[in-house]
């Protein structure tokens, strides 16, 4: 597929060296403490987590699967990538709550929200699962890179699996999360450049925006330009019921933690931001740039379709974006393009190496094996864990061919039946550790029955995935709701401490009243004079709560994301409404910023003054396992 010259290899090597060397240099900052090695000392301004959120939403196989759905579906295929829109509401809800909890990982958060044996079981389970998941993802993307190397340059598959991972390990071992986030920023620059230039060149080669759309209509494929080309409510390749289910999973998922598999990665980015405001803007901007990027990709794939409409095999047409880059870019730039593919791969590898090592070090080693470990020991343990992840990923990569079908099924299981409990743990005070554990266990059993066993015996028809989602949700709830109500709520002391620290959204009335009774927070803060319809001056105490300003932004945010994604593609192809959609998205974004920024500044500034005391308390809690800590 690619015919490289010396000049191409020169540019590939130059960018590879810059990315690895640039990230490696941050080792001086990473070796200072556990917090530096895994969270960059919680000191990053919003645009660094934002570029990392974008980079982690861009994995090695992303160009292939996005090209696949866009070539098969046309513009409506963009909705398959809209699962990233959990960041729309997540930025304003779960990111704020998680950042306030100060947990390093989702596993650690379980012990702040829940208590006792149930919470420790959840923490151990989630940490072990995430160590395994990160190894699996590393093997998965490693094999994807191996196949790219094989297709483009006829390299054996092991070359792409092993060599880039070893190169990435150099800076991930030395510089930890500092290296990951700086590498992501650099790789973001190179990847965005490649995506934009390939899109422009592809549209131009396809005969310009009008040439591309005219050709698609001439082919009798005009429906490909319609993002709402439904094939019926429940029938065909693109039923409206699938679209509505996707919207619920993606958009409402922003109220929970773990409703998307990306949450576990992005939680680390949220916690590395220097405050609540930076955590919110970081996740929001990262999600927005990801969806704008998908709009650029869609335009280039529609141009590819106009040039090469008759490709029948998925394995062939999903290489469309790679073909555009290697065939249309001149000598030199093609080398930069391969540098961008490597950049995307390196950032994926480094993120998962560091995240897996974080779960291993913080939630397994420090929590259960050596609670009094020093910072030096923890940084070294982080490096050992990175190596363990690296070796484990090679084993997964080598057996990936045989186990893919089963693991995809296992992943689907993890997300479908556990989606609702992941929201309830954030929004419902009465939900307890035993209810959440029961949800995980019920999920494993019920999914097995619904997907495999009952259809095999003819008890259930084989349902499409979007109907399985609703059935799994209902069957899971039939187990975890009774378990929750038949067991005791978490102890009020524990809940009050969590509530005052994180101020969660949703049904927390009894805990709120108890916190007020203890004098820890003020109830509705009284003000003289009428309240303006949209308030923009806040005291920190007022800004701690949830108000109509929050809800307005929560409603508008997913609308902005949809307008951006579809609008960018239509604008690039000069379709009607393209410019109007992009202008509307920008105007709504400015309005949301005008409305919510004063509130975020008030709550963020005040929280930072309390953060140091909370952190001391948290560390004492980690180091005194098995003893109840007096939280005062």
């Amino acid at each position, binding site marked *: 597929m690619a015919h490289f010259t010396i000049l191409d290899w020169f540019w590939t090597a130059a960018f590879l060296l810059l990315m690895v060397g640039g990230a490696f240099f941050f080792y001086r900052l990473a070796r200072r403490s556990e917090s530096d090695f895994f969270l960059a000392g919680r000191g990053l301004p919003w645009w660094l987590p934002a570029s990392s959120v974008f980079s982690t939403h861009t994995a090695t196989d992303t160009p292939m699967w996005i090209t696949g759905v866009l070539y098969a579906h046309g513009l409506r295929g963009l909705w398959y990538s809209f699962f990233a829109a959990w960041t729309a509401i997540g930025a304003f809800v779960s990111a704020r709550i998680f950042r306030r909890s100060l947990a390093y990982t989702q596993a650690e958060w379980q012990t702040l929200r829940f208590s006792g044996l149930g919470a420790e079981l959840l923490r151990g389970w989630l940490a072990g699962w995430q160590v395994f998941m990160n190894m699996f993802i590393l093997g998965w993307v490693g094999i994807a890179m191996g196949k790219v190397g094989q297709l483009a340059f006829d390299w054996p598959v092991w070359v792409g699996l092993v060599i880039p991972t070893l190169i990435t390990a150099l800076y991930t071992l030395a510089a930890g999360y500092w290296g990951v986030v700086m590498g992501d920023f650099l790789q973001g620059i190179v990847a965005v450049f490649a995506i934009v230039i390939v899109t422009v060149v592809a549209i131009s080669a396809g005969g310009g925006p009008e040439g591309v759309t005219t050709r698609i209509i001439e082919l009798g494929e005009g429906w490909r330009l319609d993002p709402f080309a439904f094939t019926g409510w429940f029938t065909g390749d693109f039923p409206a019921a699938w679209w509505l289910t996707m919207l619920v999973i993606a958009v409402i998922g922003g109220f929970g933690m773990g409703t998307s598999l990306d949450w576990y990665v992005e939680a680390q980015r949220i916690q590395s931001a220097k405050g609540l405001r930076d955590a919110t803007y970081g996740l929001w901007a990262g999600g927005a740039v990801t969806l704008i990027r998908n709009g650029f990709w869609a335009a280039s794939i529609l141009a590819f379709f106009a040039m090469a409409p008759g490709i029948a095999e998925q394995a062939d047409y999903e290489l469309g974006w790679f073909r555009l880059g290697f065939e249309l870019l001149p000598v*030199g730039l093609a080398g930069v393009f391969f540098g961008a593919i490597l950049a995307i791969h390196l950032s994926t590898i480094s993120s998962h190496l560091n995240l897996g090592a974080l779960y291993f070090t913080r939630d397994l080693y420090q929590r259960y094996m050596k609670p009094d470990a020093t910072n030096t020991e923890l940084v070294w343990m982080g490096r050992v864990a990175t190596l363990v992840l690296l070796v484990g990923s090679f084993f997964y990569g080598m057996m990936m061919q045989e186990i893919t079908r089963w693991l995809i099924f296992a992943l689907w299981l993890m997300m479908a039946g556990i989606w609702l409990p992941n929201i309830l743990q954030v929004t419902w005070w009465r939900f307890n550790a035993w209810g959440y554990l029961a949800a995980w266990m019920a999920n494993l059993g019920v999914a097995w029955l619904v997907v495999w066993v009952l259809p095999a015996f003819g008890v259930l028809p084989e349902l499409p995935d979007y109907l399985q989602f609703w059935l799994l949700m209902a069957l899971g709830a039939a187990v975890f709701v009774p378990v929750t109500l038949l067991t005791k709520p978490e102890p009020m002391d524990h809940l009050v401490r969590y509530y005052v620290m994180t101020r969660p959204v949703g049904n927390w009335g009894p805990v709120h009243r108890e916190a007020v009774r203890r004098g820890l927070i003020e109830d509705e803060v009284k003000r003289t004079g009428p309240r303006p319809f949209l308030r923009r001056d806040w005291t920190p105490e007022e800004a701690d709560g949830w108000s109509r300003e929050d809800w307005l932004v929560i409603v508008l945010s997913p609308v902005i994301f949809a307008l951006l994604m579809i609008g960018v593609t239509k604008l690039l192809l000069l379709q009607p409404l393209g410019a109007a959609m992009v202008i509307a998205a920008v105007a709504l974004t400015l309005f949301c910023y005008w409305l919510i920024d004063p509130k975020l500044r008030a709550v963020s500034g005040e929280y930072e003054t309390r953060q140091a005391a909370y952190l001391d308390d948290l560390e004492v809690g980690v180091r005194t396992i098995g003893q109840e800590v007096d939280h005062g």
Partner: protein
Amino acid sequence: MEPLVATQPLTGFFWSWIVPVLLFVIAFGATWLLYKRFSKD
């Protein structure tokens, strides 16, 4: 596979050298500024 286009659209010194050099300088400069900013904390 049929090639997508008969002739490559972008050619010459500008696309093979100037554009990659500019991108490299931007990326290198960004790294240097980031390191300068965060290493003085």
